[in-house]
């Protein structure tokens, strides 16, 4: 099986990262068993903790999908964070401004989020395809523009400053909200929508001509061009879809988790998506597992903190280590092949 071959180096990377995380824990004077026990209990200990993990995993799943769909077309979407903010704001706007029947209202809010993100993906896509502008710089820069824009919208003096005590909008209508699963936990239908979308992205990438074209452009744009594929259109499409996916992630946060738009609500979910997409080896179904892993690290980290055994931020240290090791094993294999001289003069 091909996927077991893919899985082993990733599992190895995770174990290695946890190992170094354990060393860091020990060196800084915390109890390794206590920290790891709390990490597991906090992430999967009971239904409530599992709900916390999945709540954290939801936006990460969307941003991972956003990163990987662009990655498959050979592009870097580093701006998922900004697309997420725009998606969250505009779905909130649809949530408190429009009056619609329950299910329809939610769908319309999701569409608002997706379109807002898609527009923010179209700009760097168009600039890349037509003007040759590096998309990893433009997506990153536009991300900040989006974050400042939404921040202004809800700041005092801004048009949607909804409450006196915090920079946020008013609550969205009940008809727009995602139902929640457990009383007291924020976990909502967002995760179900996320998993559904992951399957749709998988189908799109691997079972449709459109997905074939996207991947062909990512593998070798010159060959794709000779094969009659419109490269420019596919580059734009990839970033539009990437933006839409991140925007949907923002919408899911608004509709399920916060039920309003809050300034600076994301602790870096957009950046987590880069890690998630890479840990998943850019596979949409793998992204589900990767997002749960990262959600578990976040939720577990909070439990570690609450229990007072170590600061929560140990989890982000481990997360950073995981990424380093996940990108390494493939390259070690690559180098080994290179030494055997099987690799030509190609530039991947």
């Amino acid at each position, binding site marked *: 099986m091909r996927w077991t071959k893919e899985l082993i180096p990733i599992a190895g990377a995770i174990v290695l990262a946890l190992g170094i995380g354990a060393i*860091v824990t020990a060196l*800084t*004077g915390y109890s390794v068993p206590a920290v790891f026990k709390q990490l597991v209990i906090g992430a999967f200990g009971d239904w409530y903790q599992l709900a916390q993990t999945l709540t954290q995993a939801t936006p990460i799943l969307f941003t991972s999908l956003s990163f990987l769909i662009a990655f498959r077309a050979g592009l*870097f979407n*580093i701006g998922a964070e900004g697309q997420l903010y725009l998606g969250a704001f505009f779905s909130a706007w649809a949530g408190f401004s429009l009056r619609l029947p329950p299910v329809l209202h939610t769908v319309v809010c999701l569409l608002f989020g997706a379109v807002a993100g898609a527009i923010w993906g179209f*700009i760097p896509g168009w*600039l890349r395809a037509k*003007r*040759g*502008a*590096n998309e*990893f*710089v*433009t997506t*990153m*820069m*536009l991300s*900040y*523009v989006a974050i*400042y*824009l939404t*921040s*202004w919208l809800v*700041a005092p*003096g*801004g048009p949607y400053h909804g409450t006196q005590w915090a920079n946020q909008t008013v609550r969205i209508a009940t008809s727009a909200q995602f139902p929640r699963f457990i009383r007291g936990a924020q976990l909502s239908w967002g995760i179900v929508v996320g998993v559904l979308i992951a399957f749709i992205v998988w189908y799109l990438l691997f079972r449709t001509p459109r997905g074939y074209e996207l991947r062909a452009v990512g593998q070798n744009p010159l060959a794709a061009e000779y094969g009659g594929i419109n490269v420019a259109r596919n580059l734009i499409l990839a970033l539009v879809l990437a933006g839409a996916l991140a925007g949907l992630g923002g919408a899911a946060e608004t509709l399920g988790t916060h039920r309003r738009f809050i300034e600076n609500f994301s602790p*870096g979910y957009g*950046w987590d998506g*880069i*890690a998630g997409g*890479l840990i998943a080896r850019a596979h949409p179904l793998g992204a589900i597992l990767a997002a749960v892993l990262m959600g578990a690290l976040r939720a577990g980290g909070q439990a570690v903190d609450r229990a007072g055994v170590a*600061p929560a*931020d*140990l*989890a*982000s*240290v*481990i*997360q*950073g*280590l995981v*990424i*380093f090791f996940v*990108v*390494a094993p493939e*390259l*070690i294999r*690559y*180098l080994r092949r*290179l030494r055997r*001289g099987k*690799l030509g*003069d*190609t*530039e*991947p």
Partner: protein
Amino acid sequence: MGILSLNLFISALRLATPIALVALGETYSERAGVINVGVEGMALAGALSCAIVAYFTGSPALALIAAIGIGASLGALHAVWSVYLRADHVVSGAAVNLLVTGFALFLTRVIWGWRGTSPSAPTMNAWILVGVGVFLIALSQVYIFRTPWGLRLRVVGEHPRAADTAGINVYRTRLFYTVLNGALCGLAGAFLFNNLGRFTDGMVGGRGFIGIAAMVVGNYRPLPALLAAYLFGFVDALQMRLQEYIPSQFSLMLPYILTVIVLAGFLGRAQVPKALGKPYIKEQG
């Protein structure tokens, strides 16, 4: 003069310094062909190590060395990953940022018990670092365009194969300039610490990315990048005074929007090094 006082131009120079240092570092590594989006994390690591060493030894000079050293080590890490292991440059840089952010929040808790901040610690006069920055930038303008070493640096980024044929070690050159980039980011972090007198986790706050922006706007040249950094610093200083008229968020957006416009080629073509971000694979003999 009203809003435009001498004071404004002076505070702009201070605000521009970390941006200009990062821009200079990035100019070196990108000229050699290495993209480094880890500048944000490298500057943060520099600021944190500066705070830690200054707090425990009381010596701002030692703290400065520590900041530069940590920045350089992270530069080396990024170089090993991107140049030797051929990891994607953007991914490796992003991983540096995540790792440092996590470590910064963790270590401040471990050392001082506060999440993301340090108590105040001994500093040196930040103006010294402003001067050092301007001096290094002027020197680099000459180094990159008027010396044989600068020529070698540019060839490695433009045409590594030709550089290799001419006997230049492409890998080592890229490693060296990426380490230099890290060291300059560390210096930027040291400036931020000495400017404020303590560490906070938000003190870099996107200035690393604005540094990359300044480099793009300056078209990969140290002196124009300094001017771009000064413009951004000026806008930053001005937005505090203009808040009554323009919401600060809009002035804060300016560097980012300007960068996108420059990259889009609406203000003349940016001259991106041709081998930027591409791994170099030595031919097998």
